[in-house]
């Protein structure tokens, strides 16, 4: 019993420091992301054209729950933060992200983020280079 309790505490701590929580679970926000992406990526949407993104089949717009992918998304997002925000700390706190695979591209949203009240949706290319960001979809 004592061993079981120790294992439980270790798992909780592991979870709390983010190692196992790089992906947000699917909810209304992820549904909104997918809805916006479906609307803008599958046709001649003004948004897609302005953002210079390729048309994508809706079957390729998929919610991601693979932790390693979400971790990579967080690293890419933190890298963008370090590149643009001189006030950013050297180590940005871990947090879970919404990640959607869009064909070869990746859309990411950080629920702790805000741009004048809007929740940005970041679009990265297959090599995790930042491409565009979108507000006003949630």
């Amino acid at each position: 019993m004592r061993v079981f309790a120790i294992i439980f505490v270790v798992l909780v701590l592991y979870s709390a420091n983010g190692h196992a929580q790089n992906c947000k679970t699917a909810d209304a926000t992820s549904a909104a992301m997918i809805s916006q992406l479906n609307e803008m990526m599958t046709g001649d949407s003004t948004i897609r054209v302005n953002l210079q993104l390729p048309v994508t089949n809706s079957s390729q717009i998929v919610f991601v729950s693979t932790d390693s992918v979400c971790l990579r998304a967080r690293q890419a997002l933190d890298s963008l933060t370090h590149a643009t925000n001189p006030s950013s700390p050297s180590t940005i706190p871990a947090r879970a992200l919404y990640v959607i695979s869009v064909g070869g591209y990746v859309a990411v949203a950080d629920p702790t983020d805000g741009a004048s009240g809007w929740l940005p949706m970041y679009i990265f290319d297959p090599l995790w280079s930042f491409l565009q960001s979108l507000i006003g979809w949630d």
Partner: protein
Amino acid sequence: MQRCDRTDLADQAGSGTTHSRKRSSGIYVHIAGDPGSTASLNNFPYETWVSVSVTGDIVFTSEMPAPGVGANYQFPGRAVGPTGIYDSRNDTPWALNLSVMGAIWNNGNFGLCGGTAHVDTALISGGLVTVRRGQMLFQYSYDCDPRGFMTCHTIPSGQSQTINLKAIPVSLKASSDVRAVNFATTTTDIRFKAFPSPATLFVENGTRDVKLTTTFWQWIGADLTRAQVSQGTCAYPSGPATSRTCLFHPLESGRMVVKAYLGGYEQASSVSVQCLMPLTDPYLNDSTNDFQFRTTLLDALAMSNPDSAPGLGATAQHAGFRHEESGIIWHLPDNTYTFTHTIDSAATECHSNALAERAPGATYPPQPVPGAYPVSIYHTHPEKPGDPVYGCSGIDPNHPMWSQYPGDSLPVQHAGNFSKAGGGSGAHLFPADTTGDWPIVEKYATSMYVIQKDGTVWRLDPGLGFPKKNNPNHWSAFGTGYDGNHPAGKCTWAKPYKA
């Protein structure tokens, strides 16, 4: 004492020197001191109520009286004002006074002869109205010269008085007997009315009508088609009347513009007839104040420069031409509403603050009038989906910063489809953050209106559940922004009229 208001004075020597120019305080005319001088008043094309006042005096000289001269000889010389001087030896017993001549009606000129001058109120029209100086003092040489050769009274040359002519302020108003029509399904005859405010003046113990002369009727449809209306009851110029009506049959929402001459110049006024919006809304559907909130929103959107290119004019020091605008709806003590526009110097394409003008520590900016309280706020979203959006700001050091102006090397935000967010920002952030539209709605427990570049108008209500994209409170002010199958069409909001 006599009133110096006889206008049949005999012509006497002398001529007037007049010139006039318009000033904000009225029209000034100078009249020479010579008896019989005249000064033309402004040539109002239609009858106009005016006030006429005079400043300054003129001086006459008087020779020493000869021995035995009677007490009626005016000595010594002195200054006289616009009411002149009582002179019992003249056939008409006054001299050098000023009179308004040719008026349709006037109020006893400038007062009792030789008495304290007052302001005359007159109804005048045309170019033949003048102010005339009265006759000279009775001249009898033996009054001052036993030989009978001298001139006893003279008016030194170069003197004048200033006449100030002011049209009495009267405003043109417009109304209609029907204020709301559902033009999507029906049309109807509408009787428009132009009338003065005030309708009457109280002058010399009597009520006098104010009249107007209409010079223009024009229906401006919501699609900006213009129909100059000049038939039947709408014919113009109409000739003076206490009010004029124009019967018209519009086929879509719009605004009737009327111009009329009153109060000294041609004025314009307008009244709109529009569709009521579905989903009863107290401000958008307030026809009793000519849908002023719709006008406020359209004005705010226009001031946002939505047609300007994103980022144009934006620098490190300047937010650029395109930017959000915002303001407050106030409830007034008489149960009406007024709308104030907020000057937010920090506003960008991405944000504005309707409460920016509040003092430190205050919840709201100062009331527009005592007893008013805020009931709602509004702002604009001047971009369309896909537009770059400059000027967004992050909320903490753990996230990227966004481009404030082109060339600052920061990544540029882009606008999504705001319908997905129910028209407002920040749905996901409440209550962790209070900077977004939805969090502010909850924080202040008040509704918020947003007008988008595509003509969609949203009302964000507190307590609305998630997802916000289901927000039912949206309308089309113009265009087909929200739903191409339901364009604003014949119910497009009437544009504000700019004279």
